[in-house]
């Protein structure tokens, strides 16, 4: 069942160019020069219920702008978006009732008040019944450990505690769709772990559809089944993580420790990419030969003492992707 669908979504911004110096300030006072920026350019996508989709792209690629259009905060210049069959701008209140949103850099909580008081307000706004409120709060505590700091004013919380609070606030009314904009930014390992655990749990338990914007590739690796890559306002990749990984980084590495240095390892389907004394790094294509085959071939022919298989870094893959698509376009907005 398709939960989110975007059709040729576009967003253009008009920016006023400011000249330098006093003369420039005076002239822009009288006759400002305007430039149009294509922040989002014909983005189309369909997301099914229960998917955890990763949204990645370099800064200024248009990720946040796209998310803002999907949540109804920003009106597109052209194109349309539907969430559960409804348009976020025509039926804002209905759509928003089914959404949970977390912005990593902006808070949805009340800065000077205790965390619990923000929850109480949300309870009234979303008209959550007492029983559901209790049940959800209990679950938040189970997975996020909310009760530990629910009585502390938000401004005194650590970043990790605050993010957990934001997530709880976003999920309090049990929305079927969750938008997360950089939820693990600035968190330590412990913090990231609990956030990811939470996302996985609600996805498994309730089939919550999650759209995750992130720069953290561990997030992608651990959570996302599908990856959408945006650059210069356009979708450059959209598909299962595995497929993209295979396409972008089709290599695997075999690291051999050989008996003595100086032995040239040769194999028709593997390239030697590095040799450090006794260590040899070999690169081979997954599609051309399996690891086991390569290993048996090499062990048969060469004095191999020890070996190790290395998978390509997801970071390498992403870097490849960005490099590939980096032309002289200007994606100014985020």
């Amino acid at each position, binding site marked *: 069942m398709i939960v989110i669908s975007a059709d040729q979504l576009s967003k253009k911004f008009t920016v006023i160019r400011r000249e330098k110096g006093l003369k420039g300030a005076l002239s822009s006072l009288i006759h400002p020069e305007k430039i149009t920026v294509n922040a989002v350019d014909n983005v189309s996508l369909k997301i099914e219920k229960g998917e955890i989709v990763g949204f990645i792209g370099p800064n200024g690629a248009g990720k946040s702008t796209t998310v803002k259009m999907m949540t109804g905060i920003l009106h597109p210049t052209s194109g349309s978006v539907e969430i559960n069959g409804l348009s976020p701008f025509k039926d804002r209140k209905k759509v928003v009732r089914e959404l949970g949103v977390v912005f990593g850099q902006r808070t949805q909580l009340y800065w000077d008040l205790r965390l619990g008081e923000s929850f109480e307000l949300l309870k009234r706004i979303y008209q959550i019944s007492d029983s559901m409120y209790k049940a959800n709060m209990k679950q938040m505590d189970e997975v996020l450990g909310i009760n530990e700091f629910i009585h502390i004013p938000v401004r005194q919380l650590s970043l990790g505690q605050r993010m957990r609070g934001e997530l709880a606030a976003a999920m309090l009314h049990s929305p079927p769709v969750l938008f997360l904009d950089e939820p693990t930014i600035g968190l330590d390992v412990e913090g990231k772990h609990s956030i990811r655990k939470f996302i996985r749990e609600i996805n498994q338990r309730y089939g919550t559809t999650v759209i995750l914007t992130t720069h953290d590739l561990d997030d992608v690796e651990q959570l996302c089944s599908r990856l959408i890559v945006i650059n210069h306002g356009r979708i450059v990749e959209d598909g299962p993580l595995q497929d993209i990984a295979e396409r972008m980084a089709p290599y695997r590495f075999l690291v051999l420790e050989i008996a003595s240095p100086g032995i040239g390892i040769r194999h028709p389907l593997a390239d030697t990419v590095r040799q450090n004394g006794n260590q040899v790094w070999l690169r081979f294509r997954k599609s051309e030969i399996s690891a086991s085959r390569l290993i048996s071939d090499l062990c048969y022919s060469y004095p191999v003492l020890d070996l190790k298989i290395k998978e390509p870094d997801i970071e390498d893959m992403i870097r490849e992707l960005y490099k590939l698509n980096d032309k002289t376009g200007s994606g100014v*907005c985020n």
Partner: protein
Amino acid sequence: MYLSRVAEYMDKLRYYLSVASYSMKLSMKKQLEYPMEIISCFAMIPMMYATGILLLYFLTQNLKSIGGWTFPQLAFLYGIGDLSHGIMVVFSVQNWFLDRYVNRGEFDRMLLRPLNVFFQFSVSYVNIIGIMDVLVGLSVFIYSCVLVKFSWTFSNIVRLVVIILGAALIRSSIFTIFCSVAFWTKRCSAVTALMNDMLERTTLYPMTIYPRLLQLMLTLIIPVAFISFFPSCCFLGIDSSFRLPADAAVMTPAIGIITFILAQAVFNWGLRNYESSGS
């Protein structure tokens, strides 16, 4: 059939009330976290108002009357204007800071909630410090009532309450309309200052000092005259040289409601622009 409709409305009302009351309670709690600021402002505000009334006093010492208005009458005008100003400052001063809301992304947050954004905006802040404004305004007003020998009949009191509430609504709507410019320009501090200066000079002095054209503008275009001038004329029995279709006690609240509807429309227009241009 009809009963279920009524029940629906009652439910909706209860819903809005529960959100409003809790939101306002939270807002007040937030301010009480900084008691020193409240206390220091409490000390300053009476001084500010004192300078205003002293100015009037000194003027009238030398002149005996301004445009036919004696000091007691001027004080009454000043007091009734102050009261509506105080109420506005308590409940809708957030209009002055609309640009802050825009720049901090507060409206993004509000747009993500299943509630009317203007409603959320209106209940987002209750200004505790403004209570001092109300108290001072009340003192000045009561003092002036003593001076003009105001008759505290039941009907007068009712008319007074209705007028002051209506006047507060007019004031707040004026600010909403003009401060909404922040949706386009991201700043509204200059407009706020402009409006405050304008309101001060048109509600604290009798409108008759201004030329007829200006008086017409202040009645028909920006209905400032209904805030303190017409009501004062009604209560003090002074001829305002305007033939109003009804008593101030009817007109002021009516104009208040009309301006409020207009204010909502302008706000929503600004919000739509904000949604189109992002932040």
